[in-house]
């Protein structure tokens, strides 16, 4: 075990990964490097290939081409050695609905061949850590979706994996469960665990991830820290509200070159890439010079949605085009 844990190289190393299902190309030549003890977020719309990537990294699916090392071990040649290092919490709930929370966790303890006492101690610790003690001895099918999701992650942690894969860990979660998830991810990274997660929520990748890859239609279109990615776009947007349709009309003409988005219903104009102080002053001066009366100004800092939009031409919540 210790030899595998002290792998000097990256926790995940992928070169030229390809995967197709029948005629559709899902992953079209992907390279990834994830350092040990960091969070890596694979971000992309539905159908971008995120889940397929996770399934290949966790030995559930064989790649068509490319090299994939997890914990320094080849996933195709030594799947069992990889399985000893990893834990997966997928999108489909991987808990046994008919059993209680405690029974589910003890099952994991048995499969990791922990002794009886050690297994019980670890199960109890996880129930507390995941705020599940009160419901622990009720069948999981009576639990809420958020509780099941937390149990799912708790089961993944029983074996003390060094590399954890989370496939859309907070999709459909209530705020409380979402917060628990975020806290746990932070704690795990603090303990030196590598966390690889996928998400389609841009704000989620923005928070805990130390590095982000933007996946679009099977290719990585951008890679870097949240700050680096945000630097790729000019920065934020400005929303101007007007008192009359005439003012809106006039303002749209003045800022025409910036490709403003008109919101006729609320007499507002949204201009991307004008979030900086200097740009904002210039913009307001121009409107002033044209005698347009601005009722309200809202400035929004650049976020990953802007990055996504500028790189793919679509908003992050839209479906990827079918190849």
């Amino acid at each position, binding site marked *: 075990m210790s030899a595998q844990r002290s792998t000097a190289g990256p926790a995940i190393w992928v070169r030229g990964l390809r995967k197709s299902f029948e005629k559709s190309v899902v992953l079209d030549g992907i390279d990834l490097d994830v350092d040990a003890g960091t969070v890596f977020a694979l971000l992309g719309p539905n159908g971008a290939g995120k889940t397929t990537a996770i399934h290949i990294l966790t030995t559930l*699916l064989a790649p068509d081409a490319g090299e994939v090392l997890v914990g320094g071990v080849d996933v195709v040649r030594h799947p069992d050695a990889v*399985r000893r290092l990893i834990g997966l919490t997928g999108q489909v709930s*991987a808990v046994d609905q008919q059993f209680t929370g405690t029974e589910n966790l003890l099952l994991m303890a*048995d*499969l990791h061949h922990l002794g009886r006492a050690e297994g019980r101690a670890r199960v109890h610790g996880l129930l507390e850590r995941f705020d599940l003690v009160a419901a622990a001895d009720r069948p999981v099918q009576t639990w809420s979706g958020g509780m099941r999701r937390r149990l799912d992650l708790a089961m993944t942690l029983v074996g003390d994996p060094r590399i954890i894969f989370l*496939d859309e860990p907070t999709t459909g979660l209530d705020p409380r469960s979402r917060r628990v998830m975020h806290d746990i991810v932070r704690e795990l990274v603090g303990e030196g665990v590598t966390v690889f997660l996928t998400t389609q929520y841009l704000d989620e990748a923005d928070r805990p991830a130390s590095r982000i890859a933007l996946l679009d239609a099977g290719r990585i279109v951008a890679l870097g820290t949240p700050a680096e990615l945000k630097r790729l776009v000019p920065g934020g947007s400005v929303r101007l509200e007007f008192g009359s349709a005439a003012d809106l009309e006039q303002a749209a003409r003045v800022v025409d070159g910036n490709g403003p988005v008109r919101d006729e219903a609320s007499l507002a104009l949204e201009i991307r890439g004008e979030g900086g102080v200097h740009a904002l002053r210039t913009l307001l001066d121009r409107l002033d010079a044209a005698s347009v009366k601005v009722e309200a100004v809202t400035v929004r800092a650049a976020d990953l949605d802007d990055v996504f939009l500028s790189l793919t031409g679509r908003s992050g919540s839209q479906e990827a085009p079918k190849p």
Partner: protein
Amino acid sequence: MTAHALADTVTMLRRSLRRMRRYPSLTLFIAGIPVVLMLLFVYVFGGTLGAGLGSSGGALGGGAANAGLDRDAYLAYVVPGILLIGVAGAGHGTAISVAMDMTAGIIARFRTMAIARGSVLAGHILGSVVQTLLATVIVVIVALAIGFRPTTGPLDWLAATGLIVLAAVAVSTLCVALGLAANSVETASNSPMFLTLLPFLGSGFVPASTMPGPLRWFAENQPFTPLNEALRGLLIGTPIGGTGLLAVAWCVGVAALGLIWALRLYERLPVRVGG
């Protein structure tokens, strides 16, 4: 890896047994079908069918007293077949629970864990054998209660038990594969149907010699017939001959093929993707 094969199989068997204990209705259902069939065949058809066996005066004109004797004779004749109907019917439950389990996300979790190959399937097979045996015990109790009396000795009974265990292993293994092969729970509940029908097309309920040409050939050469003949010999002392060995060979063969098939299907199980 292999050092843990036994431990992992035991863990998976415990999982199956716990489910069985928590949801006993499936076991009772599995026992219920052969019990109902036994009561139907003995009390509704038994008087006439027993007369047809030629052990007493005959159904027509024999009167009420003879019908009673015929019925007892038929009970003795039909119990081995009923027990096999129970074993075959249990396969239904096996296929359904395997198909349901495979659609559960926990299987994907198992497949990303370093657990012994085949332990998931072994747990299902062994759990299903235990369930079949429990159902068989219920059927035997009802048979004894309505007057069935085995005429052989304890060693024969032990051999009969062994044969039923072997048959249960073969049916369970095959049905685990059928459950894996099914792409839905509905398919899994239909595909083992032929197993439940097979004992009827043999020597379990009426002698195969009374059947017309091609059907008779089928009845004499299908696996349930030697099983049935051997079991009958071990319970009521009819001649066994070569049927014992043939029965064992069939069971081992079906179990081996079922296991190979099931392992292959399990390795190639598609990964379910969430909606």
